[in-house]
């Protein structure tokens, strides 16, 4: 699971924020205040230029006082009437075609998506959810950007604004109406795609009778059979049967099957665990370098993406996760195995091929951070980017070969436990980020998780609708659409946009980039010093300041997406859902205010 930004607890996110940042609410208020002041200034300048300073000031004053008054005069009945009108209009504009497109996508998806993929669920879920996201954002864009301009063009707006309808009610009504239409579409898509993924990936196997071999214990007593299943849906499973002929087809391709005895046959049941919602509890990651010196990060292997850092094999380099609040309550016990369930994702960076198809050997060791008591190493084989779910046994041997209890001896009195991972093969590297190891809590409901992912798509849709409606209060349909598209595209690449604005990206600002393009200079080459370069960089400074201001209100669509959570089988944290919903509310409020003033200050008639 890639999690570049730590998900803070909701209240901390709202009020105080993470280290080096401020809370979302103070940030919202600051931005609102700043933009409000800028809007006021701009409004005054325009009014003063048109009507003179005194009249301009009077107009601005009246616009603000009217705005405050009209906010209190907002009528839910009028808003609902306008929302219903927007819904009827959307229906008339054949919004239902979007559903047909969606179903066509599903039909073709089942033809082209590979079922021999290593993790077909990931492929199917990410495809379906990504398609839903883009489709819904597209519909939201078209509905919201063209509606009000059509009213202006057809002059139907004349019969609205000559009624006691406040401009804010028009903006809210449209936003609410299109949101409801989008919600209905999303609900249908959500149910359909859930059924589609489950039905597409459901399959069964036969136990391959010829592959079964009897298994005996150390005393030579018959304890069951090992073998494999038939090849179905492009894969097989290893099979373990007990003496009654029942058992399990082991986890492979992201799922497993139960095997039951029916008559004299062992029958493989349907796939289980295709859709999961793992609930991780993350710890804090630090490193030891190859000499065993503590570091905040591992080494770089030259990847531009600095999310993960690496430990080199067969040295003292170690990734150390420290987990808090460890107690026996976290223990997993199924009668056969008892211990602490963890999940581990390793990015393997090979400097030589090794044996094709075989993983790289590593070790896991638990340690009491206070006493320094360490367990013996638990060897494992790492396959690149695969989620390795394992249990750290409750009974462990220490480095002194004595047996210890995980919770009593390796957990410090303040509830901390260290888990250390090393790469054991020289010349090979393991790459880690903090979320790559987690304590596995009991899985959440995949259906609820599906709902949460759709909630995040809904949030993106509402933000697009709010932007579209706001833009359409001032701009014509096509221009409002282009404006909204720009917002969406920039929103999806927000980190890059912020990087360019902050000057941390190679290649400089927009003008410098353009200059490099036409002069065929790469982004690293230093520009010759001189007047031209100074001029370019001077103009870029202005552009970058504007971009930085814009970045403050640019929604981070990539961060809002939770498709990766569902695709990789992780539960979307409730804190993230609350944060996204709050952010959505902030955008709707902020954009409605902007939309109100834009609509209020424009002439409806021509």
């Amino acid at each position, binding site marked *: 699971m890639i999690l570049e930004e730590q998900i803070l607890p909701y209240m901390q996110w709202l009020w105080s924020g993470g280290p080096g940042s401020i809370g979302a609410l103070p940030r919202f208020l600051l931005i609102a205040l700043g933009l409000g002041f800028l809007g006021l200034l701009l409004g005054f300048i325009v009014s003063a230029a048109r009507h003179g300073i005194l009249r301009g000031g009077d107009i601005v004053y009246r616009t603000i006082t009217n705005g405050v008054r009209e906010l209190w005069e907002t009528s839910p009945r009028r808003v609902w009437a306008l929302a219903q009108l927007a819904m009827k209009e959307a229906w*008339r504009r054949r919004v239902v075609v979007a559903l047909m497109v969606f179903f066509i996508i599903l039909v073709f998806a089942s033809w082209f998506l590979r079922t021999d993929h290593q993790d077909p669920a990931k492929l199917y879920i990410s495809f379906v959810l990504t398609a839903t996201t883009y489709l819904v954002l597209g519909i939201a864009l078209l509905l919201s950007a063209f509606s009000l301009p059509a009213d202006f063009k057809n002059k139907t707006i004349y019969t609205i604004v000559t*009624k006691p309808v406040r401009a804010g009610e028009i903006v809210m009504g449209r936003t609410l109406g299109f949101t409801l239409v989008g919600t209905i579409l999303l609900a249908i898509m959500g149910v359909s795609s859930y059924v589609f993924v489950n039905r597409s990936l459901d399959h069964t196997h036969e136990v391959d009778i010829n592959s079964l071999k009897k298994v005996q214990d150390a005393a030579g007593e018959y304890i069951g059979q090992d073998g494999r299943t038939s090849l179905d849906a492009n894969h097989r499973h290893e099979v373990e049967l007990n003496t009654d002929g029942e058992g399990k087809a082991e986890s492979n391709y992201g799922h497993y099957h139960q095997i039951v005895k029916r008559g004299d046959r062992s029958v493989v049941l349907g796939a289980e665990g295709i859709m999961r919602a793992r609930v991780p509890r993350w710890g804090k990651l630090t490193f030891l370098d190859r000499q065993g010196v503590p570091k905040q990060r591992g080494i770089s292997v030259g990847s531009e993406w600095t999310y993960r850092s690496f430990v080199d094999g067969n040295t003292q380099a170690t990734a150390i996760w420290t987990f808090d609040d460890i107690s026996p309550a976290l223990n997993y016990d199924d009668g056969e195995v008892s211990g602490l369930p963890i999940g581990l994702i390793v990015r393997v960076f090979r400097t030589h091929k090794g044996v094709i198809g075989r993983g790289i050997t590593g070790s896991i060791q638990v340690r009491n951070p206070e006493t320094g008591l360490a367990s013996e190493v638990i060897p494992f084989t790492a396959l690149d980017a695969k989620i390795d779910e394992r249990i750290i046994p409750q009974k462990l041997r220490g480095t002194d070969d004595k047996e210890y209890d995980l919770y009593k001896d390796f957990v410090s009195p303040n509830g901390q436990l260290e888990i250390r991972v090393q790469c054991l093969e020289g010349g090979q590297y393991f790459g880690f980020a903090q979320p790559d190891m987690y304590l596995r809590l009991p899985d959440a409901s995949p259906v609820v998780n599906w709902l949460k992912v759709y909630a995040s798509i809904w949030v993106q849709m509402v933000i697009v609708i709010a932007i579209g409606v706001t833009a359409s209060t001032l701009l014509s349909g096509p221009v409002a659409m282009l404006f909204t598209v720009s917002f969406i595209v920039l929103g999806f690449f927000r980190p890059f946009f912020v990087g360019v604005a902050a000057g941390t990206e190679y290649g400089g600002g927009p003008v410098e980039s353009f200059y490099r393009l036409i002069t065929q200079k790469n982004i690293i080459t230093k520009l010759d010093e001189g007047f031209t370069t100074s001029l370019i960089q001077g103009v870029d400074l202005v552009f970058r300041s504007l971009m930085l201001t814009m970045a403050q209100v640019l929604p981070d669509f990539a961060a809002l997406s939770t498709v990766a959570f569902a695709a990789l089988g992780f539960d979307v944290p409730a804190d993230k859902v609350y944060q996204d919903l709050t952010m959505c509310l902030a955008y709707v409020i902020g954009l409605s205010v902007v939309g109100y003033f834009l609509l209020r200050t424009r002439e409806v008639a021509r």
Partner: protein
Amino acid sequence: MSDDIVIQTRALGKVYRDFWGRQKVRALKPLDLEIQRGEVLGLLGPNGSGKTTTIKLILGLLFPTEGEALVFGKRATDVSKNERIGYLPEESYLYRFLNAEETLDFYGRLFDMSAETRKQRVDELIKMVGLDRARKRQLQEYSKGMTRRIGLAQALINNPELILLDEPTSGLDPIGTREMKDMILRLKEEGKTVVMCSHLLADVQDVCDRIAILHQGELKELGRVDTLLTVADVTQIRARNLTADCQNEIRQVIARHHGELMEMDNPSTTLEELFLSIVRDSEARPGRRANVEQTTSA
């Protein structure tokens, strides 16, 4: 501002500008106008004379370049004034995917009317404008006349005190025109204030108490219709059943008093009257050709 003054404009002017702020056209030169409660005022003028601009400024659809318009003592841009206003635009700009009931219900909700009041009002208005049989049809299926009627109904949904009608009879057949004029007179009887703009002079003459004549954005004349249209030095006598001798005697009397006889003949009716009488006759005696060759004043 007195309570009896419903609309007051003070040096109200409008200049249309291009994107760069340059003057394109002066649509309305400073206009001072007061409209009293309960009167019917007609704004007259050729196309482009500033009639519609004046109405749009009064409604707040346009912002004045200079001066101001007050409606019920409030600025034209104050939305709350719309509670007491009904507006019929030039071309009944309505949502064509709604039917008559839905349309009126929608506009009723914009006035925050309760469901019960809306139901009652919608029913009344649909019957009043004669669309009872078409109440469930979408407006896109309506003829122009029907669209004007539903447009008028939406303008009256809130039982307004002030009604602004932009070319109310445009697109209506003579019967519709007559009904619209009757409606305006009925509204006047109910004490409502009506401002209408039109370039159909006969319509204005029939229903308006006062007229304002605009030309090239400037107010050229303002006054009571009867006063403005009275020709002071001409006397008109209308009599029935005069013999030829009697007519000659009248001519002699006029000559004896040094008057100039300008015209003495049988008057003709208006085409509107003729048309309406044919339609009435046709409705009263369906299937028979109307006898209209000789029309009498009776």
